[in-house]
């Protein structure tokens, strides 16, 4: 169980401030997940390989989740960059260590984890990244049938790195995308494939999506303005966002897929 936050910029007004906005959102969900934290930041400025300035962390491109280490960014697709950091420990200290507030971007996911059934290591931190398109996923909740789906994926040659339930969803979505589903279709299919409680936020190089399970036992709030759309587990995580007073704020309906594309 956890706290999630996602932010998608509809235009470039806040590109330079994205990290600061996400840092505030992460702080707002920090108490929900004291075990570990992670962020994924997408940017649309081409060819900016973003090596994290975390002391003592070697860059291992394309290897998410080396235990105890942050994951440096890798180019996700032509014209887009993705930087992922995941670490065990206090979320606010994590944000300070990676200099989150100073980072620019157009779309981001953040997560604070209260581990349910799998270990507390950097490899078990969200966001999970999967597939050719480097789809990113954060999850608040727990899946009840992920083991079976993990085995099915393994039969297709898709091997998850950890025993984390949320990682299965990331790889399953990536597999559906590879099979030709658009993101909305894949997420809709996920709601009838996965049992358990989930609010999921998903990003790709050009999209931002939110979906909840049919019973919707985990919290989710979406806020949207002309410039950005955000999803959080708790309202307090929205409070620092510019223009919140004029935002449309609502709770996503169970089983509905909400998607914004740039």
């Amino acid at each position, binding site marked *: *169980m956890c706290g999630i936050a996602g932010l998608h910029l509809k235009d470039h007004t806040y590109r330079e401030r994205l990290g600061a906005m996400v840092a505030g959102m992460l702080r707002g969900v920090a*108490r*929900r*997940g004291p075990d570990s934290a992670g962020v994924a930041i997408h940017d649309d400025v081409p060819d900016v390989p973003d090596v994290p300035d975390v002391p003592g962390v070697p860059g291992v491109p394309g290897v998410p989740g080396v235990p105890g280490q942050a994951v440096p960014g890798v180019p996700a697709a032509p014209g887009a960059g993705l930087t992922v950091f995941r670490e065990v420990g206090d979320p606010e200290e994590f944000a300070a260590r990676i200099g989150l507030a100073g980072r620019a971007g157009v779309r981001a996911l953040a997560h604070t984890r*209260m581990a*349910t059934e799998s270990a507390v290591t950097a490899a078990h931190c969200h966001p999970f990244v999967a597939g050719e398109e480097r789809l990113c996923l954060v999850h608040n909740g*727990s899946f009840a049938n992920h083991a079976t789906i993990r085995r099915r994926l393994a039969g297709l040659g898709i091997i998850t790195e950890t025993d984390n339930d949320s990682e299965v969803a990331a790889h399953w979505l990536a597999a559906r995308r590879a099979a030709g589903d658009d993101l909305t279709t894949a997420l809709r299919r996920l709601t009838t494939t996965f049992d358990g409680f989930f609010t999921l936020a998903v990003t790709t190089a050009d999209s931002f999506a939110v979906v909840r399970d049919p019973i919707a*036992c*985990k919290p989710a709030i979406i806020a949207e303005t002309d410039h950005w759309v955000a999803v959080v*587990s708790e309202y307090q995580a929205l409070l620092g966002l510019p223009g919140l007073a004029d935002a449309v704020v609502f709770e996503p309906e169970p089983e509905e897929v909400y998607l914004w594309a740039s």
Partner: protein
Amino acid sequence: MTHRPDLIDPGRLAAEAPPAHHTFGPDVLAGIRERAELGRYPIRGWGARRAVPDFDDLLLLTASASRYPLEGYRERCDTRTVFGARRAARPVVLDIPITIAGMSFGSLSANAKEALGRAASMVGTSTTTGDGGMTPEERSASRTLVYQCLPSRYGFNPTDLRAADAVEIVLGQGAKPGGGGMLLGQKVGARVAGMRTLPEGVDQRSASRHPDWTGPDDLKIKIEEIREVTDWQIPVYVKVGATRVDHDVRLAVAAGADVVVVDGMQGGTGATQDAFIEHTGIPTLAAVRLAGDALADLGLTTDVGLIVSGGIRTGADVAKALALGADAVSLGVAPLVALGCNAPTYRRRPVPPPDSAPTGASDSAYVEVDVSAEYAALGTAPGHCVHCHTGRCPVGVTTQDDTLAARLDPVLGATRVANYLRALAMETTMLARACGKSDVHRLEPEDLVALTVEAAAMARVPLAGTDWIPGR
């Protein structure tokens, strides 16, 4: 179709006794017929009736030459148990590490609840409310009363919450982890229905999830609310049915529990589906070690309490549970048996002739009344009765019928339960002293060996006479 005597010889089959364990044994046939009759799952009371590895499969390595025992009666062996001192202004202080588990007024009669409260107070321990709220009799009879906060929230209110000595947030129970409470209509009388805000006589099926939170991240907020409402005075327990024990203990701690209560699969119930009772959860023996190890791994053995329950019967069980990591045990079925459950008779104090002078007869003077025929009328017999769900308890323990309930004298009953609890405490200290321990909480896994490979694997102690722990 022609008869094939080479395949079926009815005479031979009739002559042979069926094997003891048989896929379609007599119990199974009866179960199939019962389902065919009812069109639904069978429901009953009590706990698991199947054999599972339990504390009888462990033995204590008491002292001799390498270690020395303490003298019984002369050298001190502490039993005092404290819960919640880290956060609560008023920690729970128990004289013995043996408590009484949550059982509802509704499932039990008011007299039974009062007797349990009196008994617990007599021996300096706690008793616990149940699904349906707190009765004034129970509150006044109990020196230390743990108030349950259940998914149904029947009878849950802030006044009683503040009157409690601890609050126990119930996520599940060993007899039916993942399921909700159940009370059939025959027990939902006027008082029970009123306390639970239900129509009289409904087959009450409680919720299995709390109405205003799901998951440990939200439970953390809920626990803070309860601490605020009780002004951080009383400890907060979290009770789980024993399934994924390692995860659940860690999450209860992450959510802020002062005490984790782990109820093994042998835990009892007033009424639930037979399939739940016999086929869900893990044995208490396995659960206690998992829970104790989880707390040890978190480094919280002294800060967070561990209570285990489910099939605890004797002081030997208590000593073994403590050795495996529990700080205390909780008892449900056993004190009911002490009250008279499954006895062929009930006991009442003699009614003196109207014109006689008071005799000052002690509580131990009583008259026995045989009720075997009433067990037979329920289709059962003393010693085998699991008919708590019917509300027709011949000895007045699990009933809401006034006539039946009156058969349980709360004063007499309390004396018997208190005697039983004292005997358990004495057995526990006797065994702890024999292991050289001046405090029952100093019993440790290394004081145990196992008689069977199964118990050795579950408790993670060596098979007796070897240094082999399966899986190590």
